[in-house]
């Protein structure tokens, strides 16, 4: 069951991610990416990261990707077909090769050993547990993150407003 779920979600997420970077139209990319986010949310849930899984759906798939879609559809951003990709196969080859070179050390992160999961403690990854951590030990980073979001909010308003008469 677990293996099945992993293969399904993992394979789907890889396929959708590939689709996201390959597809010509940004809208398709965004839709593919939303799919990837959902798959990852499932994978998070499989690892008892319940709160994170929920946030993945709400924040990433919901808010962030909705923002992307909003921008794309509002502005009708469209990649000119063949404008870049056909012209520079040399760059693409280089990109794939270098990415592959990056892949090798990444895959071996485990150090060649088989690392098995232990049984999770009860309450691991629940909203209550992570929330307690966020509001005690990590209250300062949490507040800083809120300031960061506020800054982004203000920045977005300033950047868009000043140029519009």
């Amino acid at each position, binding site marked *: 069951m677990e293996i099945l779920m992993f293969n399904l979600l993992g394979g789907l997420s890889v396929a959708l991610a590939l689709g996201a970077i390959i597809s010509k139209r940004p809208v398709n990319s965004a839709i593919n990416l939303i799919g990837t986010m959902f798959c990852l949310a499932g994978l998070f849930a499989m690892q008892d990261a319940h709160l994170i899984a929920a946030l993945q759906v709400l924040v990433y798939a919901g808010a962030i990707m909705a923002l992307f879609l909003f921008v794309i559809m509002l502005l009708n951003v469209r990649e000119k077909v063949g404008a870049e990709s056909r012209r520079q196969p040399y*760059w693409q080859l*280089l*990109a794939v090769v*270098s*990415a592959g*070179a*990056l892949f*090798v*050390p*990444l895959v*071996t992160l485990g*150090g060649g050993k088989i690392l098995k999961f232990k049984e999770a403690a009860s309450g691991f990854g629940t909203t209550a547990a992570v929330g307690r951590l966020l509001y005690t030990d990590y209250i300062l980073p949490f507040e800083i993150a809120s300031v960061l979001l506020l800054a982004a909010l203000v920045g977005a308003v300033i950047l868009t407003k000043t140029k519009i008469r």
Partner: protein
Amino acid sequence: MWGLEHIWWVPILPLIGATINGLVGHLLSKRAVGVVAVGSTGLSFLVALAAFGNILGLAPDQRVYESVLFTWIQAGSFTAEAALQVDPLSAVFLMVVTGVGFLIHVYSVGYMGHEAGYPRYFAYLNLFMFSMLLLILGANFLLMFIGWEGVGLCSYLLIGYYYEKQSASDAGKKAFVMNRIGDFGFLLAIMWIFWTFGSIDYTTVFPVAHDKLALGGLAVTGITLLLFLGATGKSAQIPLYTWLPDAMEGPTPVSALIHAATMVTAGVYMVARCNALFNLAPMTMMIVALIGATTAIFAATMGLYQFDIKRVLAYSTVSQLGYMFLACGVGAYVAAVFHVMTHAFFKACLFLGSGSVIHGMSGEQDMRQMGGLGKKMPMTHATFLISTLAIAGIPPLAGFFSKDEILLSAFLGHTPGHLLYWVLATIAAAVTAFYMFRLYFMTFTGELRAEDHHVRDHVHESPNVMTMPLVILAGLAVVGGFLGLPMIEGGHALKNFLDPVFAQPGHAAGGHDVSVGLELLLMGVSVGMGVLGILTARYYYSVKPEAAVELLNKGGMIKSIYTLMQNKYYVDEIYDALIVKPIVAVSDKGLWRFFDVKVVDGLVNFAATFFMGLGSMFRTAHTGLTRSYAYAMVFGGVFLAGFWLFLSSGK
């Protein structure tokens, strides 16, 4: 004990005066500036007087008072405290400095009345008082050094007081540089003392000097020679004396205070203060005595044919300082301090008198323009005559007693060659009498020789504010000598007072065993020499002035000696050729044109061009294309990850 406990106020009061006059003096009226300057010095004098009274009230062996204000520097084993020390030696200097200083401040009010920069003058003068008092009251070598540097600075500032005059600012610089040479020696000596004793406090160093240092050893000889180098700079001894005659560019009260009465005697004070060290170094003592005697005769002969009234006095000062060092060199510290005191009285009086003359002559300093001033300036004349007699060594004036004591000490001294020194000093006494009376006759007798009728009509006696200090100083020059009556048991009050400072383990504190007959004989000789000098001067400059001209016109030896002396033995020229010119040449050709231009500038330029080239090499990497940066990032990531892989696979 009111007085000793407030000893801090003695230097601080002039400092306050200097601060007020220096910062806001230009906003005050001249009267207020004068009140601040004279008042601060006067109060300081009163405190000093009280402290002196306290010291007199103590038992002779307890006359050391130390007052620690705060710990100034503490670094490792090095400690320097801001502490003042009053003992008989510093008490004598204290009285001379504050007393004479006060009188000269009063005099300055009158003398400098018409000058621009009046507050500046008094700020410097008060600052000088502060530094000088710190020098003599400091309880360790470092404080003495601070004062030492401070008086040097003020001397520089005051010599260059008329800074718009090229010769004055040059003279200031000369004094400063010459003093720096001496200061360098002094500083090295302080370091050596710390190295040897682990302390720079007088009370720590001197009592153990006898045990720690071998008699005539390398350390003590080196320390004392370096100290003496400092003294030669400050007290204008051979070979560093040339700045003092040039220092006469400063205002006359400055010459009186700094370059006659107080600062130049700092060297004598320092040698006397370090007597514990000097007594252990016979070789240094010999050098001190030799240099003192040589300077005495050498400077006296240079003073013979000067025509500038202040320059004569300047050479006379150098010569008299030579006497003091001669006394130190033969171990007669009491005589040296005695002479410092009497010299301060009569030389300050002479300088102030000459200032009065210059004032009356509308700024003229050339004696060939003077003459016959005695009738027009009676007060100046009388006081000047008394002081001239004093310096010539005529009894019973102050100069007689102190000079006679030095001559006696030299005659009886233990230092090798002391008889030679005695002969030199005795001849110098005759020469001194001659040139001082030449000065006197040329200035005050005969007919006024000034051609400018404005000057002739304007000759007048100085105001009371200037003549009163003259009278007081002349009075001191008369009675000052009685502090050190010879021959009478217990008559030498100064000696009794100072002996605790100079009494050394292993040395008898008592005086010389000398028969009254010999002493009287020596007195007779020195008085005879003085009278001889006076009579010669009278013959050539008063009775028969044309005789001197005739003598010169005969030419030959006398003419060439005259030229040699008038040109001050060409010492300035010799220094110029031997030291200044080579330094200028090396600096110009070597340091500037080669080292600075080629090496220093070359290095800087090389650094600039090198990194410019390096930059142009790397400039190509900055394409401005986002993608190329992204690639660079990925390659960096690949490299880092690969490196990590390589490291972990090695385990």
